[in-house]
Structures are given as C-alpha cells and as structure tokens.
C-alpha cells in the first residue's frame, strides 16, 4: 500500500492495512539492527527533534537511536532547563525549533491531544510518543509486533492488559491496534482503575477477576501503576493490589502453556509483576524494547515522506 500519513498521532485513526504496513516495514528494519554497521541512509539530511515534556528513558532513547540508524540528525529537548520553565507555550517552543529547519517532532506530553495540537500548528511531521493517558502509538505497535513475532499471528488471540487501565495510554493504543488486527482484548484491573465506559469506548471486554483472565490469555501485558498520576487514590494499598491484581508465579500456573508476559516498563517490581516473572522464561520484556527500535525506525521512515518503497529499494536509490 502507499503510505500517505505525515503524522502518527494515535492508533485509533489508523486502518488495519496501515498498521500491517508499519509492522512489515519494522520487520525489514529489524534486520538492520543485526548488521555490524547498523545504519541505513534513508533519512540522511533530515532532522528529527525529540520534544519530551515528560520523563522518559526507553522511548526517548529508542526514538533517538531509531533516527540515527536512519541517518537523520537528531536534537533533543526536555522541559526542564529550557524556555518552558520560563513559561513559553508548546506552540511557541515548537515554532521556534521548527524555524531552525527541522522535519519531524517526536513529542511526549502530559496533556492528552498535545501532539494533535502541535500537528495543527506546524508543518513538520508529528509523532506521538505518549500524550497523557490518551495514546502511545509506537508502544502499542511494538507490543503488537512482539506478539506477532512470538506467537506467529495476532488475529484470534486473546490479549489481556492488566492493571492501571485508567491512566494508561499503552492500554488504549494496544486496544485499538489489537482490535483492528482481529484479537480479543480483555482489560482487567481494579474497578476504580478501569473507567466505566471504556469497554464501549474501545470495543473491548472488561474483567476484574485476574485468575479468570490469566487462564484465557495468550499474551499478558502488565501495566505499571502510575503513582505519578495519583493512581494511589484509586485503591487501598499496594499490598492488597499485589495480592488481588498483581501477576505472580502462583497465578501464572493457571496460564496457557505458551502464554507470554509483557510489560511496557518501567516495572514496579513486586507490585503489578513479581521479579521472578519479569525475568523468567515467559517474559518478552527485553524483546519488546529491541522491537521498539525497529518499529520507531519504520514510523519515522514512513511518516517522513520516504514511504511506499521497501527498505532495499530505498538503499539502492541512495547507493
């Protein structure tokens, strides 16, 4: 298919074909990471700016490295120690950086819709790297990529997303993407951390019985409790949470033999997921991180206008 989008703002608005296109493109980029020279010239001369208004380790580094592997120049910006602390607005900051001649913004922001706002006010590509509790499309894509890679397919699988659904952009992006590719999605967690209308909003199932969910799932994606978003107000305490809603070895005895355990990180070890499981055989957590790089290369490559052509064809042209 011909890729036509300039921005990646959310998975809700993508078609199944577009999601598959990103996953397939990512698969071809994954091969690049295995080479001794891990670089292709696809975005040579282009500039990608990381605009991070919220803390990030994985995502910001993953995007920066993805851009570098595509030979783009990169700049990074974080809200502390910048003009934001002097009260500059998002739009002003972005327009000033844009005036330096950049091609894409990768933005993380605590406000839902901040990437959408940016896309309305700049000429650059805008890639959403997490907007509040709304979406985190590249995390959703890398999770789906990992499921497809490990389990060989997505359609027909049951994927359970466990924990702090209320505050999770990862849950929302996963739900949209997985549903479009034909998976069954169950969101499970304490009633107060699963917003009342979310089943209807996302076309998913909701459960508060983790044992029952564990038995059915082919993939279990554990979410971090977002204490920084005051998630602690919504349940009585972490000990109770771990006992009733956390994933532990005892509970995993009920799981299907091939079920995988995922986590977008960072992990609250011993709360939503025990260290034994996080580091155990079923865990694909580090593969998720590796795959994230390939997915982000694919997203930058497609959205920055190179589109359509395969990686190989592109390299030929560049050569």
């Amino acid at each position, binding site marked *: 298919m011909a890729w036509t989008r300039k921005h990646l703002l959310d998975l809700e608005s993508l078609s199944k074909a577009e999601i598959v296109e990103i996953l397939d493109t990512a698969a071809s980029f994954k091969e690049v990471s295995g080479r001794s020279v891990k670089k292709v010239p696809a975005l040579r001369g282009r500039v990608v700016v990381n605009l991070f208004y919220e803390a990030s380790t994985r995502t910001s580094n993953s995007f920066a490295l993805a851009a570098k592997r595509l030979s783009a120049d990169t700049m990074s910006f974080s809200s502390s120690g910048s003009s934001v602390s002097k009260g500059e607005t998002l739009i002003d900051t972005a327009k000033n950086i844009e005036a330096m001649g950049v091609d894409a913004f990768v933005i993380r922001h605590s406000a839902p819709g*901040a990437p959408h*706002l940016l896309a309305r006010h700049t000429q650059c590509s805008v890639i959403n790297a997490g907007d*509040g509790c709304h979406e985190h499309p590249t995390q959703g894509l890398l999770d789906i990529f990992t499921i497809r890679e490990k389990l060989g397919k997505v359609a027909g699988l049951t994927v359970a997303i466990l924990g702090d659904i209320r505050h999770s952009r990862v849950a929302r992006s996963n739900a949209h993407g997985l549903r479009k590719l034909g998976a069954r999605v169950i969101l499970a967690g304490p009633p107060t951390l699963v917003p009342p*209308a979310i089943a209807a909003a*996302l076309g998913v199932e909701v459960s508060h019985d983790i044992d029952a969910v564990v038995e059915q799932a082919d993939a279990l994606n554990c979410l971090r409790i977002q204490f920084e978003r005051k998630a602690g107000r919504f349940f009585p305490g972490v000990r109770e949470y771990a006992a009733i809603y956390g994933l532990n070895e005892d509970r995993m005895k009920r799981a299907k033999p091939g079920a995988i355990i995922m986590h977008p990180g960072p992990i609250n070890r011993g709360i939503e997921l025990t260290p034994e499981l996080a580091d155990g055989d079923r865990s694909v957590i580090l593969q998720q991180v590796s795959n994230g790089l390939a997915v982000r290369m694919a997203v930058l490559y497609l959205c920055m206008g190179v589109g359509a052509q395969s990686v190989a064809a592109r390299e030929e042209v560049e050569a």
Partner: protein
Amino acid sequence: MPTLLLKNGRVFDPSSKLDKTADILIDLQSGTIEGIGKNLKPPPGAEMLDCSDLLVCPGFLDIHVHFREPGFTAKETIASGSAAAVHGGFSTVVTMPNTDPPLDNSSAIAYQYLKAEQAGMARVFPMGCITKGRAGEELAALGLLARAGAVGFTDDGACVNSSFLVRSALEYARALGKVVVEHCEDHDLSNGAVMHEGKVSAALGINGYPSAAEEIIVARDIRLAKLAGARIHVQHISAKGSVSLVREAKKKGAKVSAEVAPHHLLLTDECCRDFDANYKMNPPLREPSDLDACLEGLLDGTIDCFASDHAPHTTEEKSQEFVETPNGVIGLETNIGVLLTHLVHKNKLPLKRFVDAWTASAARVLDLPGGSLKVGGPADVTILDLDLRWQVDPARFKSKARNCPFAGWKLKGAPVYTLVGGKVFPAIGATMKVPAKQKSARSR
C-alpha cells in the same frame, strides 16, 4: 419631541399575548414605548424603521455573561461585551462576579454600573458573590451588595461547597428579596475534570466530570432552599438527572428555577474528540440523552430560560493543550441564530417559547425589569429576521474573544436591530454582508 416609529413589523410578545402586524411608537426622550397599534400616526419629523417581514420582540435578556472587567480585560471589557450583546440581539445582560477582584463588595458593583453607563449600549446588571473572594469560606456582604444593585448572588465558576454557607446565603437573600444562583458542581467528585465522563473521556484518557457531580448539588440546593424558604436558581443545567430533580421539585412547589445554554442543547461530548478547546466549558458538553432532557425541560417549563454563559478567553489561552485551557465559550452573538436554525426552524421548539425563554421568563427568574412590550415601559426591543441566511464568522464579532463553538455554522435567522431605551443598534443580521445569491433567495 424626538420620536421613532417601528413600522409594520410582526409584533411578537408572548407575555402580553401579542402576535400581530403593527407599529410601535417610541418616545426617544424618555426611552419608552408610547403606543403599539396598527397604522400609528407619527408626529412630523419622526424617524422611521421599516420592520416589514421582521419579528419585533421585547428586548432579549441574557442572564449569564462574563464581561471580565475588572481584571481580565484582554478577554473582554464591559464596553466590548456590551457591544457584543447589542450586536447579538440582547438589550440586557447579567454579568457574573468572577472578575479580579471579584464583585464581592459594593464598590465593585458600582464600578461595573459606571463602566456600563460609559459604554452606553446594553443594560448591564451585575451579580454579586455569595462568599468573600469567591473563596467559599465566609459570606460576602450580601446586604450591601444588594443595596449597590447586585441582582442576585453567585460564586459562578465555582460551587459553594459548604451547605451551611449556602443555607445562610439563602436565608439572607430571602430577606433581601434576591435569588441565590448556583454553579452546581460537587468539586470533590468532579475532581478537576475537564470534560464529561463517558465513552469519549474514556477513549481520550481525560479525567471525566460525571453528571452526578452536578445532580448532587442540584438536589442539595433544592433541599436547602426549602429549608430556608428561599429561591434558588440553577445555572447552566446540563445533565438529564438535574432536569428531573428540578421538575420534581417544581411539582412540589419548590422555589427553584433553571437556565440552559445553547451549547448544552446543540452539542455533545463527541465534539471534544479533536481536543479543540472551543468545545471545553464547565459544565461540559454531555450526551445526546442529556440534550433531549434539556430540550424537554425547556418545553415543559422545568427549565425557565436560556442563558449563554458567554465566557470570553483570548485566542492564546484557548490555543493551549486541551486540559490546560480555561473553561468557557462565547455565545452572545450566536445565541439567537443557532437556536432559531436548529430548534425553531426544525419544529422542535415553538417560536413563542423561544422568545419567552429569552424575554419574560428570563426577566422573571431574577425580577429584572423588561421582557415585555408595554405602553409606558422601556423601549427595549429585539428585531429578528427569521429567514436571513448567514454563516458564523467570529472575525465579525464585536466581542474581543473568538472562542466560539459554532464558527462556520450556516444559519437561518438572525437579530437585525437591538433597541435599548429607544436607541437603535444594528445587530449581526444587519452588519454582515449577505452574499448576493442568498439575498435573492431571501426575497423570494
């Protein structure tokens, strides 16, 4: 004696059961109506305004506007707000006291009256605060506020969370013959929410404001009003449960009234999907069933009147991230057009109820003068062209603000003149350019 003759209009006043083609003669010296009747003979030299094919109504009142002065004059001033009012067809407005400083003392009330007089356009009646500094902690000087001319008391923008204070305010207001006017929101339950809690907020990952947070306070205040034997007015009703509560209370004879804003009758939370801050206000846009309930309440009299909650903000403020932008949208210059187009012309709301809810019923809620056409009464008149086709272009507004949720809407029906004490102001239907094609369509 200077005189103005409104010639040959369809004189339409539900409060005096008037609906006939007639003339209105206005004494410009006193600003009062001298005669209403067929073929009135004006004195020589009288000015004349041809009202053929136009609807001549009592001056419309918008009992809920924010004019931001003192304190936030970049958003709106009393002068720009008054200009927007008459441009939008409103001869009278009631201003909310959430200025800086707030209208919690008599000199602040006097200041707004002075500014309004200097502007010399719409009649402006300020409301005073219920609590000092709108802080919700101690009563403002309600007696002195009333003496200075406050037409009611509210902490609008915030609810008075203390039931004790609301009771005290109600008792005090009863003795003053004034109404306590409440922004109904249980802030603990709404918890800093920025949109309605439902499917859309769940999908967007935005903290939602459940309808129950409004309903709880509506229920509480109805009970407190009964306890105090006083009148309570529910501002900007938005949830179907609130409409039911007011309906039941009225049946039992409670002294409760309610207003509804055009956006709560015409727009739903689906509008927030693109994170456009021009759909962000408090109370928030809710669901289709809430819109239906509000319309039903308007039709059966549960809801007494319209009010726009005209809430101007600068374009800079409204271009921030959705969750960061201040609440509120403007309404003065679109109120009439959007309701005529989407309710009256679609036969969902009788013209009579439409006019009544902007005139007599609005005046009655706060015991304001006006709202009817009477010989000897003030010559406050709103003249409408029910068939005029136009498109909302915020650039043409007299308001300083552009935060309009109806930008670009194609409408049928607009105010063409607003008279305040006989003084004629062209309204939006007269000041905009009508494309030639539409003009000919109109004359057909």
